[in-house]
């Protein structure tokens, strides 16, 4: 009984700082998801246009980002870029976090969007072209709407990965959820297990609705008029 009261006490004491941490995690992840998705969408569409050089450039970008750990990318953007002495690359922690996480997100979104576009059967564009639509009209009205439906499930998993990746930001001193937890543990080292579980629960409370939402959206937008044959 005492221990339960004890735990409630801890939760009460830590509540404000953990909520602040969750808010920071939320802000940065939403910004990164938003910016990364916009960038990734543009690059993904560009990759499918059939321009050889453009495609190679985008592939190079993707390989660089996907072939290195996010932590290393974060270090480069936060510690290394400022030392180049270029003024607009002098990021503070918050900006470095958003920029690096957006780039990271974009690398996954690009692949998802490009493969979804390729997955729309060729007959769809042929039909659109044969009634006289231009190439961009075909993309806008026929190919992309169908491709976007296909992106819902993989996009949701990437978003959850991005949300969880914000934990890494604690290393550059961003007071996000994990960082707040670490600070709390310094105050109450005896409750390390309980506090980490509490943090995990906070992440779960954020990620789980995203996955549920994706399931819902998939059912709502993905099933009617699904892409077949």
């Amino acid at each position: 009984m005492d221990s339960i009261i004890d735990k409630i006490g801890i939760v009460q004491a830590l509540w404000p700082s953990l909520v602040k941490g969750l808010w920071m995690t939320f802000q940065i992840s939403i910004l990164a998801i938003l910016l990364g998705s916009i960038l990734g969408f543009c690059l993904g569409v560009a990759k499918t246009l059939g321009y050889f050089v453009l495609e190679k450039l985008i592939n190079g970008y993707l390989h660089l980002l996907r072939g290195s750990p996010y932590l290393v990318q974060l270090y480069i953007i936060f510690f290394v870029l400022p030392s180049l002495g270029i003024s607009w690359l002098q990021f503070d922690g918050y900006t470095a976090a958003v920029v690096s996480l957006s780039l990271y997100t974009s690398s996954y979104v690009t692949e998802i969007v490009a493969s979804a576009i390729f997955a729309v059967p060729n007959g769809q564009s042929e039909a659109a072209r044969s009634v006289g639509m231009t190439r961009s009209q075909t993309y806008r009205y026929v190919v992309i709407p169908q491709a976007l439906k296909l992106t819902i499930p993989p996009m949701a998993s990437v978003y959850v990965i991005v949300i969880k990746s914000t934990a890494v930001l604690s290393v550059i001193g961003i007071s996000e959820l994990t960082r707040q937890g670490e600070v709390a543990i310094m105050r109450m080292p005896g409750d390390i297990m309980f506090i980490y579980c509490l943090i995990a629960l906070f992440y779960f409370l954020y990620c789980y609705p995203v996955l549920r939402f994706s399931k819902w959206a998939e059912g709502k937008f993905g099933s009617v008029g699904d892409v077949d044959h």
Partner: protein
Amino acid sequence: MSEPMIMIDAVSKTYHLKSRPEPVRALDNVSNHVDSGEVVVVIGPSGSGKSTLLRSLNGLQEVDSGKIVIDGVEVTDKKTDINKLRAKVGMVFQHFNLFQHKTALENIVMPQVIVAKRTREEAEEIANDLLAKVGIPDRGNNYPSMLSGGQQQRVAIARSLAMKPKVMLFDEATSALDPETVGGVLELMRQLAADGMTMAVVTHEMGFAREAADRVIFMDEGRVIEENTPNNFFDNPQSDRAQDFLRQIL
């Protein structure tokens, strides 16, 4: 009739496929023409180049050399506004290719609004009339996945007709259909022919060729082997290759 609706002059196309060591000569110096209101049926074994020929007529397939003119507009000229031309040339595909994310009605409305710049109301009115004409007036709100193959092909035909084309191209339009729905689509095509539509039809339906065609073109290995009236072609084929072919399928 001064000029034919479709004029094909010495058209050649060779495919270089990675899967085959030899280049494939899909069209070998093909010349022909289709008059206004004429129904021409192209038949031949698979790989004979008949689909390539049909797809080259609206520029879906680029050709290596030669000239194609439709209604006075040169398809093979790089300067031609191909989108404007395609709006006048309806194409019906083997696999229907209805826009999967749109209802039957929207499939017919969308190209009218986007390409022909009609108002929504006008486009919907035309679409509803066409759905009635192709025999499925109550299917406008269905998505393609909820329609049978035959119904989808009817919608596809209506989608093409909505652009008020001068020519209709049919690329094996009934090959992917269940046997019991083939008849209805063929009947619709016959009706179009009777209404005076200029049509180029690639098909394996010999019954349709015999009844509805004004002229039959038999192709093999990228060349036009024989060209005749349907009755002459089926009853008294001139070339050995056509005789062989007819023996195989009839």
